[in-house]
């Protein structure tokens, strides 16, 4: 009997709803827990990052203009698809050496659903009607910031990524994500999930490659409004934070020891950290 031909997978970037290889043609080896070669995903260049920011900027207008309810529905649908790919995520995490793959995938999906629910609630919780002197209605409400860069933590590769990505995207930001360098495969699978979901192309862009190489370009990019530095190595942090000053980017960084602990790793403040407060003075009759 003849053996089937080995169908090997090419792991690519996710930019603007498409799966391109790196513009540079580069890739890098990723090894499993037992030091065997798992894959050679694309090693994104600064130009790939630039393209991703452009795609994110383009997609932002439509995404942030959708109703909060609609965004919540779209993100809940992603959770449905994540559930359908559960076995694949578990396998990838196990190959990469994650200690509790099943628990991590379940926690990731639960967290995604939890953040999706915040979509149409955050405005009510955070928005205010302000008492002011004079004949005005005065409102304050949170809005999305624009393009947000996310440097995902190295581990846990899926749960850490989801914990930082979901609160950023739920309010209407569009994202450029730098995936875990040593364990990028779950992020690539997540990109495949997003591509088949109702999340519009360009709203979430996923780059794989060298975190140290990509982060400075993301941090200094003048068209990125905020950046999550959770995955930036400790010794590069000062340099990167200085670079964010160029356009006064907002920077956030989660310091989490136990990503499974809901009390620490998920919070509505992770959502509001990447929002801008807008106050409107509306004249009313005397």
């Amino acid at each position, binding site marked *: 009997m003849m053996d089937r031909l080995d169908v090997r997978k090419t792991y690519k970037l996710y930019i603007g709803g498409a799966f391109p290889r790196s513009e540079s043609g580069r890739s890098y080896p990723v090894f499993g827990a037992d030091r065997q070669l798992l894959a050679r995903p694309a090693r994104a260049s*600064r130009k790939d990052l*630039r393209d991703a*920011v452009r795609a994110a900027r383009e997609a932002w207008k439509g995404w942030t203009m959708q109703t909060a309810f609609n965004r919540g529905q779209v993100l809940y649908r992603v959770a449905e698809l994540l559930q359908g790919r559960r076995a694949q995520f578990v396998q990838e995490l196990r190959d990469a050496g994650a200690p509790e793959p099943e628990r991590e995938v379940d926690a990731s999906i639960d967290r995604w659903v939890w953040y999706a629910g915040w979509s149409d609630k955050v405005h009510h919780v955070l928005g205010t009607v302000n008492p002011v002197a004079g004949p005005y209605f005065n409102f304050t409400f949170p809005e999305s910031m624009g393009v947000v860069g996310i440097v995902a933590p190295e581990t846990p590769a899926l749960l850490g990524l989801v914990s930082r990505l979901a609160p950023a995207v739920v309010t209407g930001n569009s994202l450029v994500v730098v995936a875990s360098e040593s364990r990028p495969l779950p992020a690539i699978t997540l990109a495949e999930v997003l591509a088949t979901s109702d999340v519009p192309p360009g709203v979430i862009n996923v780059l794989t490659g060298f975190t140290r190489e990509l982060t400075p*370009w993301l941090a*200094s*990019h*003048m*068209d*990125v409004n905020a950046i999550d530095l959770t995955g930036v190595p400790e010794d590069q942090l000062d340099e990167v934070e200085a*670079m964010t000053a*160029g*356009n006064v980017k907002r920077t956030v960084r989660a310091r989490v020891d136990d990503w499974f602990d809901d009390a620490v790793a998920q919070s509505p403040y992770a959502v509001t950290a990447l929002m801008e407060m807008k106050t409107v003075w509306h004249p009313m009759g005397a």
Partner: protein
Amino acid sequence: MATDIERVSDQFSSSSAVALLGRVPSVDAVGLEERAASLAKRSIKRESKLWALDLAIRCVDLTTLEGSDTPGKIVAMCAKAVRPDPTDPSIPSVAAVCLYPALVPVAVGQLKSTGVHVASVAGSFPSGLGPLPGRLDEIRAAVEMGADEIDIVLNRSAFLAGRYRQAFEEIVASKEACGDAHLKTILEIGELGSYDVIRRASVLAMAAGTDFIKNSTGKIGVGATLPGALCMMEAARDFFHQTGRRVGVKVAGGVRQAKQAIQYLVLVYETLGAEWMTPDRFRIGASTLLNDLLMQIHKERSGAYQGPDYFTID
């Protein structure tokens, strides 16, 4: 080939021009597209890129051709033409502003003694199908108001119907109406159908004495394409070899990114040579391109990718 053609000063007589058209060689479309594509892949880095970006700015015809243009918009655009980046005096002025005749006086007032030219479209832009006397009057009026460059359109209706003589004589008459002003003739290559026809239209316009051939009005779907521009440049090169006259090339319609502008500069250099790498012989008609050129210059200098929030809206 040039020797057997009867020449009237810089121009051909209509019969010799029509005869010349019959001898225009056909264009190898596959080869042309391949060559344009391969030249577009050339990598221009660092100092060369900065030099190219600087030249591209100096070659820009900053354009607004909307029915809704107001004097206020023209004043703002002229300010941007003179100092594209108000915070950086090392950025050069653009070559010209390009607008409708009615707004020429506004631009002339703003650009006095700045070295920035005022280009006006005229001659029933963008169709070119008004009565000829009216079209010539429009040109004369624009020149009288102070425009020193005139962009007219080729009469495609006559040209495509095979009435070459009429199309030719209209350009000759337009050139005459221009007086000292430079004449650019728009071929609207998106409407011409094939490279052979683009090449023939280029030769017709050059023989009629136009100073520039320009590819597009920017008013139709297909504007500037690299192979289309290359086809025109090759026609200009061969025309120079035949007659010794250097005709400029202007690309317009959809050139929005610095990268595209550099690709066109590469085409110019490789086809027409360094002699054409000047605003006197090469122009890019554009509106949004200028900001992208500025962003690329800032990116090269600062090392950080730039965002549109930090550049003036045009």
